[in-house]
């Protein structure tokens, strides 16, 4: 273990996946470690409350807004451009409302899906505030609990000991 690494900026504890992590998180909180400094890394999404950070970005709302913009785009293409470039056809309206509805539906879906995807990409790209290397044992099923702490931080040793006492299979300084 690289305990004396001066560049250390965190502690990683590897836990058995069947072990409940909520008590460990509670103990860390009680010890004074802030919630934002703790990250759980796993091969699968962890079920249950308390293991994930609160969402600051409401994806559903963004999807709805993007969908509304999509409707406007559809109306512009199928409605406005038809009015700007009128194509005379016997018995047909220049701007046909059902057509505007169909095209707007598609553009609404397109923008809703694409924008939701882009926001998700942004959240994945910046989905960890603690820079840590890939941990192969996580792929094999273990769950990693990463705590961002400077080595000089008064809680550094306390946290290390706490993770060991909580039953971590391995505790490593990052």
């Amino acid at each position, binding site marked *: 273990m690289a305990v004396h690494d001066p560049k250390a900026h965190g502690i990683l504890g590897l836990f058995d996946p069947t072990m409940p992590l909520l008590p460990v998180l509670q103990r860390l909180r009680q010890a004074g470690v802030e919630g934002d400094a703790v990250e759980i890394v796993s091969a699968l999404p962890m079920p249950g409350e308390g293991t994930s950070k609160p969402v600051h970005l409401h994806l559903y709302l963004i999807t709805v807004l993007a969908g509304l913009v999509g409707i406007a785009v559809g109306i512009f293409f199928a409605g406005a451009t038809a009015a700007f470039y009128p194509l005379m056809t016997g018995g047909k309206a220049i701007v046909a409302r059902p057509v505007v509805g169909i095209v707007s539906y598609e553009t609404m879906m397109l923008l809703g899906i694409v924008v939701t995807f882009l926001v*998700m990409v942004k959240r994945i790209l910046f989905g960890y505030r603690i820079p840590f290397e890939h941990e192969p044992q996580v792929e094999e099923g273990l769950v990693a609990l990463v705590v961002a702490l400077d080595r000089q931080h008064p809680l550094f040793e306390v946290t290390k000991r706490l993770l060991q006492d909580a039953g971590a299979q391995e505790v490593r300084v990052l």
Partner: protein
Amino acid sequence: MDQAENRWAEIPKINRDLLAPLQTVPRSYFFLVALLACVVAAGGGAWLYQIQTGIGQTHLHPPIFWAVYIASFVYWIGVSHSGTFISGVLRLCKAEWRYPVTRIAELMTVISVMIAALCVFFHLGRVWRWYYLLPYPNQRTIWPDFRSPLMWDATAIFTYATASALYLYLPLIPDFALARERIGGWRRSVYRILSLGWRGTQTQWQALETAHRIITPLIVMVMVSVHSIVGWDFGMSLVPGWHSSIIAPYFVVGAVHSGLGMVVIGMYVLRRVYHLEEYIRSEHFDKMGKLLLVTTLTLAYLYFADQLTVWYGKIPDHMAVMNAMLVGPFAVPWWSMVAMIFVIPLATLTLPSFRQWPAGMMVVGLLINLGMYIERVLILVPPLAHPRLSYNWSSYFPSWVELTILLGALALAVLLYVLAAKFVPVISIWEEKRGRIHGRARS
């Protein structure tokens, strides 16, 4: 070890098993790729010949202006419904048995949409003028007519192609991250980019799951709209045999029918080639068989309802089309189609033991797809061959140029799938793990 620990202990094996197809390349693989590439080249050559010498190389002629290229377009769009249905609808229904088959289907969706789009270009007489379809200010004083269902089609297919590519990519991100660490060579750098720096933090999982949860119902709605609009390409015209109010749901159900059949073929082949018997089990074939049974019955019901109305109305123009199919020049393909998409599936899929027989299911899947292709051709050709004025009645059989191009397109679809199977895990690794860990995939 208790049961929960046992399940977690399976994870390393799942990683190894499901990444193995990406790590080994047998000699037969290169042979297959070379063979498919030759057929694709033949198709490409025939297309170039058609472009150079003109659309007259096809057997399209008045009054048959749409034929096998458009039938292939409709067919491939139908096949593309496999991924969305299996992944999307079954996800909404929380059917957890879907995990081993979702990726197989999603890959099919993306490849099928690409081939479908290609079929439209085959059909364009002057393909180099394709950009006339785009709405942009120009000096030609013409503008795409959005009142035409073909423009709805272009909009819907662009939406569907984009959405299904994103829908394939979403659950691939964690798998790309796994592959990034285990597969070397040029692929590693590509995996690194595509995995978006995935580490598996709960914030990342949450973002992925939320996006999946939002996009799933949206893409299901797009799926329904796309094939409805393809159906309206026909239904909006006053051609006897096309002008029907139930053509949209009929097209949607037919699309899901052929899509499911194609997924069964894919399941069988991939299971055999990559020895995935432990993952794609007979219970998955059984479930797919039940879904196929539902689509068979629904499609038969819609088809009967549509034809009954035509038969009861006895409108001469409509009856001419119907008679041409039942007892006329199109009787052989029509009755073959009925046998392949209705009779044989009904006779076999109602037997539980048959549904659990992978080879048998694969044969039914093949028959359904062959039958659905014939059905797509029959939707187009008999109505166009029997316009209202009988002096203009005609017939059609594709030329060698058309057949070669379409064979090339089929080979291209298989080739893309074969190449993709060496880059993308054919079973979603993390979803398979999740199914096992939570103990529902095997229930």
